[in-house]
């Protein structure tokens, strides 16, 4: 197969240059389709990285138990709230059975106003912790010390504060050793936790951590606790989870056949939800891209049909000079593919810019992947081939005598 490649590509570019507005309109569908694919793939990949990074920051060998568990359905949540509270006693019993196979912590929280001198912050999460909270949370202290077991046992009025609380309330002052008023009770700051950053725009550094018993003094009644379990051996997490379920069912007198009166939440459950969400996003985008590419392809086909008609005589000349059907076919296919590839390239540029821009102004690490670029280019090339075949076949099938006579 011989092809006048220089002419084919040259003609495509020349046609694009000659009428910029028409070219833009011709390629619009392809540009939009490829832009959508590149931008969304890059963003979703970035978000995936972000979400799994954050969710797994605590380690994949941690799970949580509370009354509700991982539940999205409002009715089920309402039902679950009627279950008996989880208590510190449940956590202690569980810790006793799991022994040195796992770390167990219990936590409950309330929101309260906090104050230092004339500085105030409203609705700050006050977490009461007990058990192996340091091991489960992997908490790092920037300044001062963490809460000690003795603090928890003696229900001391001491607190570790999040880095944002430290900055806002103490404004440059070292908070360690200073007073902290929580509600109407006075605590002493013993440490400042290392900054964790935000998760989907929500700060993870606006909290105060106190011994569980000290937190109880701030609330009218003992709240249901959340139990955190961290398997010492990451490989045996499933076994620890099974054992936890069995132990809690026994302590809480869940009858055989009756469902758990508590819920276990694993990082995988969050990731699963996230994957469902991104899968939906992908389907929507594939739909948008498919429609754009279909429209773009039809426009390219129309442009190519016009081109074939305009150049009927040229096709006749080429045939007279020895071009075979396949040669003409290939020439017009190359033109169509060059057209659609230019659209694809513009789409890749536009989509990448959008992804990178989002990456700049948000915490999402929106890296443009080679996969996305490759997919965009391949898609646009396929549009060119698919929608170029019919015009190219029309050109190739022209009778040389008729074509040469065409005015």
């Amino acid at each position, binding site marked *: 197969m011989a*092809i006048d490649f220089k002419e084919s590509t040259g003609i495509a570019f020349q046609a694009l240059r000659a009428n910029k507005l028409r070219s833009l309109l011709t390629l619009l569908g392809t540009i939009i389709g490829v832009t959508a694919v590149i931008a969304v793939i890059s963003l979703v990949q970035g978000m995936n990285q972000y979400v799994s990074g954050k969710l797994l920051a605590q380690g994949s060998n941690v799970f949580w138990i509370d009354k509700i568990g991982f539940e999205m359905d409002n009715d089920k949540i309402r039902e679950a709230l009627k279950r008996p509270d989880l208590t510190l006693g449940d956590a202690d019993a569980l810790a006793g059975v799991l022994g040195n196979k796992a770390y167990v912590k219990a936590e409950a929280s309330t929101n309260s106003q906090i104050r230092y001198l004339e500085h105030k912050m409203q609705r700050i999460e006050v977490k009461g912790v007990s058990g192996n909270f340091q091991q489960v949370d992997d908490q790092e202290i920037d300044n001062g010390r963490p809460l000690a077991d003795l603090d928890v046992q003696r229900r001391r009025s001491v607190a570790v504060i999040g880095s944002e609380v430290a900055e806002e309330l103490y404004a440059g002052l070292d908070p360690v050793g200073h007073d902290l008023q929580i509600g109407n009770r006075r605590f002493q700051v013993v440490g400042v936790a290392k900054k964790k950053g935000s998760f989907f725009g929500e700060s993870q550094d606006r909290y105060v951590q106190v011994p569980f018993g000290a937190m109880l003094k701030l609330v009218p009644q003992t709240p249901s606790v959340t139990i955190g379990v961290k398997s010492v051996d990451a490989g045996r997490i499933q076994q620890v989870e099974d054992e936890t379920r069995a132990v809690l069912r026994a302590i809480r007198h869940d009858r055989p056949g009756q469902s758990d009166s508590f819920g276990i939440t694993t990082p995988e459950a969050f990731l699963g939800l996230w994957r469902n969400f991104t899968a939906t996003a992908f389907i929507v985008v594939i739909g948008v891209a498919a429609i754009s590419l279909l429209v773009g392809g039809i426009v390219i086909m129309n442009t190519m049909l016009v081109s074939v008609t305009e150049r009927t005589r040229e096709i006749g*000349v080429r*045939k007279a000079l020895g*071009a075979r*059907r*396949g040669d003409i076919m290939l020439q017009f296919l190359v033109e169509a593919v060059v057209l659609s590839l230019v659209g694809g390239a513009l789409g890749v540029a536009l989509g990448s810019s959008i992804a990178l821009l989002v990456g700049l102004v948000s915490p999402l690490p929106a890296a443009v992947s080679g996969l996305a670029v490759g997919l965009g280019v391949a898609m646009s090339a396929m549009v060119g081939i698919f929608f170029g075949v019919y015009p190219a076949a029309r050109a190739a099938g022209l009778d040389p005598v008729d074509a040469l006579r065409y005015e």
Partner: protein
Amino acid sequence: MGVLLELIDLERTYRVGSEDVHALAGVSLRIMEGEYVAIMGPSGSGKSTLMNIVGCLDTPSAGVYRLKEREVSSLGDDELARVRNEEIGFVFQTFNLLARADALHNVELPLIYGGVGPAERRQRAEEALHQVGLGDRMKHKPNELSGGQRQRVAIARALVNRPSLLLADEPTGNLDTRTGDEIMALFAQISASGRSIIVVTHEEEVAARSRRIVRLRDGKIESDLAVAPQAQTLAAGG
């Protein structure tokens, strides 16, 4: 000299509406290698149809066409394309150059379809352009060339693949008299170098430059006469 082409009882019938039109109604003709033949006839005489068949652009409805002892009347599209590429060089009344391509690229086209590599292609195209006196216009586009220069590019393109036959259709039809004369002088040169030429024309002066005139009327050969050397000299002088 061998036989270049042989037509035996050639017929070409078109269907127009419900009627059959016999564009060629039994044409037999033999042309030897190296001949310079003019085909003449009024419009509707079938000379264009004959040219299309001789040029392998069209196939006869009946009869035999042998080109260099090969039966080409029943070849398929792609085989005909190959024959056109290797054996025939076309020169058209309206030049039919590609407007977007420069002279060099226009001349390269038959070589592209002949599968000649880029380096050799370029060299041969340059050579052909030098031969028609356009060595200094290779990078010019058709719209930057005069009519005569365009036809020279077309002639270079027709000859670049060293065809057995140069087939020209009213080659001077779009040119003024002086430029037309120049082109016909070039044809005489090409003929002198041994290349077979068929010119389809309705101009007596053009036909007079050839050595044999075949006249068609109503799809049949009306006359087939050698041109007197005297007439040739006169035409060349005029």
